[in-house]
């Protein structure tokens, strides 16, 4: 077995070619062999830069690096065979269609003779607690199981240092647990040094020896009793909506009445018949395990799909020429009534500029161009996106993309908002911004529906919870 690696940084500083400010300055870090360290910090603090430089992933043409950084006395780029990486997106890390082949991939690259490969593959799979055979199709795995497999692929190469970059950011709580359990197993006998980079510190604390935080490009070491501040601490939300005495507004703005959905060509329903009303001025949370049809319910309530059984009906005040089934409305009519935010914000972007993106909805629903522009300016200011008004939406960071997709939904001032996992993978600052923004919509009398696994979100915002 190879020895666990040592990491040493002295006065490390990094500056990206396109920026004037240093992303990292004066970073000193010592990680002993077999030690487990968590690197945390807010988005934009320099965490990702530290990860990239540690992993030897910085393009030397695109960044300036000064100071000293070594892994076992070597520059990271020369120590790459000592590193094992686990990154965010499982689908961007698996190479082969079968589980065993994927673990073998890294050994084939190292020129390991074929006869030695399979015993090492089996050992690596056992080390992460793999429950399926080698022939398991990777396509059929859940996100957590995919990450577990990627970890096995890294371990098979017997790395001295495991580097993890937010490996649970795209997973639900079950998947995240799978990943952390596998990591705990893999480092149990301290054969490998472990460095985890994650903005969400709390779940890693039982697994690591100590925590360092990246603050404004520098490193701060935390003591053994440190715990992260809760993101809900001091959160002041606008008061709930004062209900109008008008009885016509009392009911739900949109309601599922025994609505269910079965995909064409399948027999098991994606969503069993469900009753759920979204009252005005309230936040309704839809919760439940994966596979219960939460996202399908969101699609039905948002008027994107028609139910295959039961019905979804909007309140009379939202009806279009008497039609109350949202999925029968034209798209331009839908957006002024129901706004939807998807899990992947980039799927909703249609134009090459933020400003155009925000004007699109109002223009499509018949607003004049002056009104559309005014609305776009207002939202850009309001969400702190004004500096990027002429940027391409795809070039924004994850948190900014999320804010933009919420802003595009708000641009047409809909009475109903449906959001699928709006807080997924967001750091504390973005999380608070989003929660505040949704509370403001509630105060303005919107019916808000969030499909989520996020307990904090449900506890601090939801007026009603609908478990599936």
């Amino acid at each position, binding site marked *: 077995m190879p020895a666990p690696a040592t990491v040493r940084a002295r006065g490390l500083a990094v500056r990206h*070619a396109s920026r004037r400010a240093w992303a990292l300055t004066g970073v000193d870090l010592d990680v002993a062999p077999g030690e487990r360290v968590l690197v945390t910090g807010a988005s934009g603090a320099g965490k990702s830069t530290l990860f990239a430089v540690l992993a030897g992933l910085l*393009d*030397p*043409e*695109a*960044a*300036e*690096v*000064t*100071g*000293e*950084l*070594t892994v076992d006395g070597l*520059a*990271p*780029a020369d120590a790459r065979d000592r590193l094992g990486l686990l990154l965010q997106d499982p689908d961007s890390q698996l190479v082969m269609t079968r589980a065993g082949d994927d673990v073998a991939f890294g050994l084939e690259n190292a020129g390991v003779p074929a006869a030695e490969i399979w015993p090492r593959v089996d050992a690596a799979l056992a080390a992460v607690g793999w429950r399926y055979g080698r022939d398991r199709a990777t396509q059929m795995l859940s996100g957590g199981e995919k990450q577990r497999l990627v970890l096995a692929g890294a371990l098979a190469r017997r790395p001295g240092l495991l580097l993890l970059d937010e490996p649970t950011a795209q997973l639900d709580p079950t998947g995240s647990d799978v990943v952390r359990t596998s990591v705990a197993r893999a480092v149990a006998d301290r054969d490998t040094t472990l460095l985890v980079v994650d903005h969400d510190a709390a779940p890693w604390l039982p697994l690591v020896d100590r925590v360092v935080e990246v603050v404004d490009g520098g490193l701060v070491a935390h003591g053994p009793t440190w715990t992260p501040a809760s993101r809900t601490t001091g959160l002041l939300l606008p008061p709930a909506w004062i209900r109008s005495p008008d009885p016509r507004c009392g009911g739900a703005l949109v309601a599922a009445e025994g609505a269910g959905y079965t995909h064409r060509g399948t027999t098991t329903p994606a969503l069993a018949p469900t009753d759920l009303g979204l009252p005005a001025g309230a936040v309704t949370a839809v919760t439940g395990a994966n596979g219960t049809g939460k996202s399908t319910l969101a699609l039905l309530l948002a008027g994107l799909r028609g139910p295959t059984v039961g019905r979804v009906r909007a309140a009379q005040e939202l009806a279009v020429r008497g039609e109350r089934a949202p999925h029968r409305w034209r798209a331009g009519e839908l957006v002024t009534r129901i706004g939807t935010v998807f899990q992947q914000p980039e799927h909703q972007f249609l134009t*090459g500029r933020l400003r155009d993106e925000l004007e699109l909805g109002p223009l499509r629903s018949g607003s004049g161009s002056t009104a559309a522009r005014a609305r776009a300016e207002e939202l850009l200011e309001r969400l702190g996106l004004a500096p990027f008004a002429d940027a*391409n939406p*795809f*070039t924004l960071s994850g948190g900014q993309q999320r804010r933009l997709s919420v802003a595009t939904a708000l641009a047409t001032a809909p009475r109903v908002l449906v959001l699928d996992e709006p807080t997924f993978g967001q750091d504390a600052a973005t999380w608070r911004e989003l929660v505040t923004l949704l509370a403001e919509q509630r105060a303005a009398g919107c019916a808000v529906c969030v499909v989520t696994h996020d307990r904090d979100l449900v506890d601090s915002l939801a007026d009603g919870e609908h478990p599936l």
Partner: protein
Amino acid sequence: MTGEVTRPTAARSTAPRRTWRTVDIVTTAVLGVAFGVVFWAWNLVFGVLAAPLDFFPPLSAVLNGVYLMPGVVAGLLVRKPGAAVFASGLAAAVSLLLGSPYGGIIIVYGLVQGLGGEIGFLLTRYRSFGWGTAVLAGVTAGLSTSILDTSLYYADLGFWAYKVPYTVFTVLSSVLLAGVVGLLLVRALARTGALSSFASGRSRV
């Protein structure tokens, strides 16, 4: 990296790097796969779209341009010798995998169409990737496939009555779709920041 300072090079050398990085290989392959899916879909609509053009059968060649896109687009995007052949051949293989009306011969087509595009890039020595090269690669790609088509499938038909108009329409379609639309596509991709690891994503021509 001890004590060493790496500065971003101000004037990047203009000579293209000939070796393939992993990101070049995977991106070219992804383009090939994506266009393979497009081929599959295009094969299905081809029949429908070609039907109204039947009053003058060589006219259906205006639909050929789509098949020439992967080679030219990959060449413009990845800028490596062989990118056009790799992407075009793989696109053909994927369309076969998904079910193609043309059978195994489609691989030959994919390779020949890729080689056709490659000739365009070769003529500009893999140094310029602007409008001139895009159009040129479109022309050479179009010629390659029409030569293959007219000698394999339409060998019996008249030279002036069929083969020449067929070739002209194919080349026009190729210049428009593979060359012009192809370059616009690469530039649109560059604006999204998706090509940050490529020269085509950094420079403005």
